[in-house]
């Protein structure tokens, strides 16, 4: 498909979708959102890119293979359980630390974010591997 309108719109939409997916990922701890839906939003962005341009450039945008992205996500999710063990409590216990940046409110960072990031990457990787496989079948 080569539509000038779609291509031009995609250039603006994809960064917005990716930003929105990160917002969903980070907001998910207290508000609607989270790793799963964030990953889907990011996948929607990449799928749009693949539609407007071509699958190969979308693949290069992902850098890793879709399977690699999911594997990385799984690994992050599993590793997020380890800080709990190192601090002497159960596997997957949530551990938090507070980061003080000048000019910002204190930011709480914890292992659940890492777990959610893992979910985000797994969803992104799995969705992209399905979409790429279907799109390449067609062409």
């Amino acid at each position, binding site marked *: 498909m080569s539509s000038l309108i779609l291509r031009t719109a995609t250039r603006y939409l994809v960064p917005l979708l990716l930003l929105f997916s990160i917002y969903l990922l980070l907001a998910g701890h207290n508000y609607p959102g989270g790793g799963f839906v964030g990953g889907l939003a990011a996948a929607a962005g990449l799928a749009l890119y693949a539609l407007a341009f071509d699958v190969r450039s979308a693949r290069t945008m992902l850098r890793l293979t879709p399977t690699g992205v*999911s594997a990385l996500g*799984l690994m992050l999710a599993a590793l997020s359980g380890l800080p709990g063990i190192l601090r002497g409590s159960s596997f997957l216990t949530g551990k938090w630390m507070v980061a003080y940046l000048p000019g910002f409110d204190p930011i709480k960072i914890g292992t659940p974010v890492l777990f959610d990031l893992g979910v985000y990457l797994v969803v992104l990787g799995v969705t992209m591997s399905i979409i790429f496989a279907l799109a390449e079948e067609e062409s």
Partner: protein
Amino acid sequence: MNLLAAPIVIPLLLATLALLGMRSHRWQQALAVGGAALLVLVSFRLLFRVREEGALALQVGNWPAPFGITLAADLLGAIMVVLSSVTGLAIALYSVGARETARERFGYYPLVLLLLMGVNGAFLTGDVFNLYVCFEVMLMASFVLLALGGEKPQIEGGVKYVALNFFSSALFLAAAGLLYGAVGTLNMADLAVKIPAAEDGGLLTAIGLLFLAAFGIKAAIFPLFFWLPASYHTPPPAVSALFAGLLTKVGVYALIRFFTMLFPLEASFTQPLMMWLAALTMITGVLGAAAQHEFRRVLSFHIVSQIGYMIMGLALFTPLALAGSIFYIMHHIIVKTNLFLVSGVVHYLRGTGELKELGGFYRARPWLAILFLVPAMSLAGLPPLSGFFAKLALVVAGLREAAWALVASALAVSLLTLYSMTKIWGEVFWKADPTPNAEAAMEPARYRMLVWPIVLLAAVTVAIGFSAGPMFALAVDAAGQLANPSAYIRAVLGTAP
């Protein structure tokens, strides 16, 4: 007790590492073999801890039971994890020798690791819903392993396998939902406390029967076993062996766990039903095997028949019978995996499993013949191998309970098992080769790589046979913990029941 999470987390982490290095066969093989070896160490450590300290529990994420995710291990769970790790190690080594390079490229090793993760999770979880999740993890991995390669018979077997297992999962989920509705909890320790106090006995019996149907399909008991011989001979030998050794036994494990701790069989409606199922499973399995003339098909039907023995011990429901069942599982997982591995070597050498096209292996490869004889005779129950003691315990337990018909069928089936094993022995190893020089060339290094895991498992079989006393004592303790789960409940809930 973070040790409990290790048999689940280790294969997960290694699978992700293997997925990231998909291009390198060496890397994947090293991860699979190293990971399986690590699992063996960890699982033995777990077994020793449980043997010393009694049941252990881990509240994942520090959320208290019965609300959070609970991992718990009593002796039965720890024994099962040891068995699955030993099988996993043998399969990983064998896969290196099998050199299914096309399949390796599509994630063979990560899938094997994920399958082990699901199996270990099922053995260690202390929660009915998480048991369901672990079953699904295990099934997803097994679906792909079964179909990987995409040969026509594989797809045909795979469709039956997937359809029936999905049906079983649906039953399982429905039963879990009903159980939650009836009792208000799915934590196994909590259930063991609350079910005896629940008023609606009829509903709980019905829920128990739903679980029986769900796990019965997965364990391949009569009359729900037909998916097994339809699918197990189709994938590559290493995958067949892994499935044959472990997957149905996860169903048997779930049956034992549920019908001792949660729905005790004693004097219930389910007990006579279970006895019938045990006898019919044994008989149909062995008769099916007698009618087959393909190496792996014969062995597949024997899985069904052997499952009958394990159910027999559960159905008799005396301490001795339960211990017999557990000992039977210990013996069976090792022996069955090994028989499939031997059939795989024959398959790689000759490209067929049809008994009438094979022959002359005793002359060509006498050591392989002896390595087949050890598990085969153990399966048939010849002393002093492990199968003899397993069957002895079950038969003695049956005689004490005056279950004459059940004991008679167990003995008759044992004889027919011997018939099937001698049939394979006669056709594949003893008779003259009908097509001489049909053997595919195989480098000695690869052959050795295939045979080492067989030697390992045969050694384990012999070791179980010669240390039957201590092994059986272990099984008796495991059965005692199931009959009286107060230590398990205390470990999980923190209070005495």
